């Protein structure tokens, strides 16, 4: 500790401000935020905030459909009963990307809504009294499409199968032959 001015009273040693400084500070009025005018800074900050809010793009409107992939590991059921009948949906595309031919065996559909309605009708569901359907809800549905079919149609076919409450929907394996 360097040489100090004349020692203050012991009662004042505890504070780090002299009595005079404290009085001066009290006379200045309520605490100010320095001499800085913050209005412009706030304006700029609000500008930045608005920019980021406007350019923020949240993925709020994206959802998922869960699909099973064709895997050889799919457990082949050792059944004494008949193997479940596989429903094959065939999608064929033409030159117009928006148009696709939807076939299920001999049936041809004009739209995916029609496909969904028909699949729903064909579903055997005793719980809701629909006992004239041919396929139980766990019948495998295989979606087969040629390479030039657009992804939109494949997902739409998948969506139709899911909407008709089938639980075992997948895409076809590598095209082997006309099954």
């Amino acid at each position, binding site marked *: 500790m360097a040489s100090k001015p004349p020692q203050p009273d012991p009662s004042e040693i505890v504070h780090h401000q002299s009595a005079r400084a404290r009085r001066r500070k009290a006379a200045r009025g309520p605490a100010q935020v320095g001499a800085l005018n913050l209005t412009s800074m706030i304006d700029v900050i609000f500008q930045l905030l608005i920019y980021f809010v406007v350019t*923020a793009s949240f993925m709020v409107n994206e959802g998922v*459909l869960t699909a099973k992939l064709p895997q050889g590991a799919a457990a082949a059921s050792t059944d004494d009963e008949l193997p479940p009948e596989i429903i094959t949906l065939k999608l064929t595309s033409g030159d117009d990307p928006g148009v696709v031919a939807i076939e299920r065996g001999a049936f041809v559909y004009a739209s995916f809504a029609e496909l969904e309605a028909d699949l729903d009708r064909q579903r055997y569901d005793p719980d809701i009294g629909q006992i004239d359907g041919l396929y139980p809800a766990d019948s495998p549905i295989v979606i087969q499409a040629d390479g030039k079919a657009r992804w*939109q149609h494949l997902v739409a076919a998948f969506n139709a199968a899911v909407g008709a409450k089938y639980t075992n929907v997948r895409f076809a394996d590598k095209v082997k032959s006309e099954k």
Partner: protein
Amino acid sequence: MGSHITARGPVTPSMNITPLIDVVFLLIIFFMLVNNIVSDESVEMVLPELDPPHTRELGEVSRVVVNVAPEPFSKQGRAGYPLEHPGRARYVKVGTGVGSQFAVEDTVGITAALTALRTANPDLQVLLRADAALFYDEVRPVMGAVTAAGIGTVNLVAYLPEE
């Protein structure tokens, strides 16, 4: 008794704006970070529009988004006709960050990346996010690569039903 109200002229309210600035800074940083993460994870594309959509929200699960990015396009050009697009994919992006981009034919690389992610996190959910106009030829090898990584279920991403 009673309070003395000393008239000293017009009263200027003095507000301490420090907390306001703190909150605004916080908001800015929040939006900056979210924007960065979201734009990194989802490549810009047009997703399939379903009618009627049975898509659902996936919820909080650990996931990796596999983006099959289309060739560059203009949003206005496709506005009314989302399928008006050559249909070729430009690249496949598995997750985010460095080294997440692969060529469409590079199924080996995609499988390796997914296997690595899956060993780190066995409950990983894969989200397949492909543009609506892509040919099935472009997406099928990617699905094959996902299968080869030992993943049995994949979530196809499409738009949610309009509220």
